[in-house]
């Protein structure tokens, strides 16, 4: 399967904003999905996948993540992202 058309972008207004992500996704090896919660800072980087655009923001400086989540960053779908300063 071909990868989606991806258009990277940057929104400086979001850089450093603290946010929570009600994330998750389907799990490898099965038909089940799982929820994952993250708290961190938005870098301002985003990616628009396909058309209509499905927007994802990059979050780093994670202060909350699933136990033993091995990465320092996570991509969050825009509608699942909640700015803490709102």
């Amino acid at each position: 399967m071909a990868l989606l058309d991806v258009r990277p972008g940057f929104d400086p207004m979001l850089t450093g904003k603290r946010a929570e992500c009600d994330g998750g996704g389907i799990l490898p090896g099965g038909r089940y999905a799982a929820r994952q919660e993250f708290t961190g800072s938005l870098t301002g980087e985003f990616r628009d996948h396909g058309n209509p655009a499905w927007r994802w923001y990059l979050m780093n400086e994670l202060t909350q993540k699933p136990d033993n989540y091995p990465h320092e960053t996570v991509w969050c779908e825009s509608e699942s992202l909640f700015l803490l300063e709102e």
Partner: protein
Amino acid sequence: MTKDPLHTKLCDQLGVEFPIVAFTHCKDVAVAVINSGGFAVLGEAMHTPEEIASDIKWMKDRIDGKPFGIDLVLPASAPPETTLEEITAKIPQEHMDYKQSVMDKYDCPMPKQQVDLHQWGGLSLAHGRAQLEVLLDERVPVIASGLGSPAFLLEAAHERGCLVWGLVGRTRQAKRQIEAGVDAVIAQGFDAAGHTGDMGTLSIVAEVAAIAGDTPIIAAGGITTGRHLAAALCLGASGVWTGTLWLASRESDVDMIIKERLVASEAADTTWSDSVSGFTMRVLKNPWTEEWKKPEAPDPLPSPYQMILSADYTQGANDARRPDLMYEASGQGVGFVKEMKPARQIVSDMVEEALTVFDDVVGLPD
């Protein structure tokens, strides 16, 4: 009372007789429920776009123009791109050894074929998007997202006459989706099968209903009887989303061994375990979940590592059809699944019981 308590705005939205939504991975169950006056959403998250198109045609040929839904799992977060090889290499040897000891203890055979691990990262987005294109092309009456927000596809869906439903585990997710304009919100509680949020069904349904305005709310989690249906409507829901209820139905393609276990199970026979996937999920108790609770067991790994660990056990048990090893995701309502009834009878029994409850409490219209 002056109106039929089971005729809700969800019935009006869908043009169905009863506010009962069956979530199922089995086409035969979906067709039977739809043709019995309910509504069905077919889970297609693990299918290819071609398989989804084929299933849609199969269903359309059997429901005489009635509406139906398709559920996909839209991701809400994604780790940086990694390969399966990179992930597998990070599983500690201690965990590999413990997995093997469990499989040896129960004489669990290895899978007959290599376990097909789902892709993630950028490829899963492409996969999800390709699945969505099929639903839009086929103008599926209801597109449901079992996890992530479907808000980005609302305009495209509505242009094609498709309704969009989102499943939420938290009230703020519901608020966001309602503001975006989804056509219904499924509020799923902790009682449900599989992975859920941490709010109980009673709490989340009431909270979401309180902010829903005209948007129909569908209650999910532990709902298997007409008594549950009546309670959900009293909480402010316009319908119920049911999954476990159909697993042991006559039409269901679930293995007979699992059906027999479901029929024999009570709520307490389910467990909320992170040993299967690395996330807590509700399944029927089984040797794998119980062995990972023991003091000598290492702590389960996070997803996706634990899922990779458990995959051989799960597939090996299923391939060998071992009743002592097999399991299935199951909600806490399983205690009321006591017979392998036809789906039509399940619908009519649920309706009859709900009406009896309403009649007992407030009386029914003449």
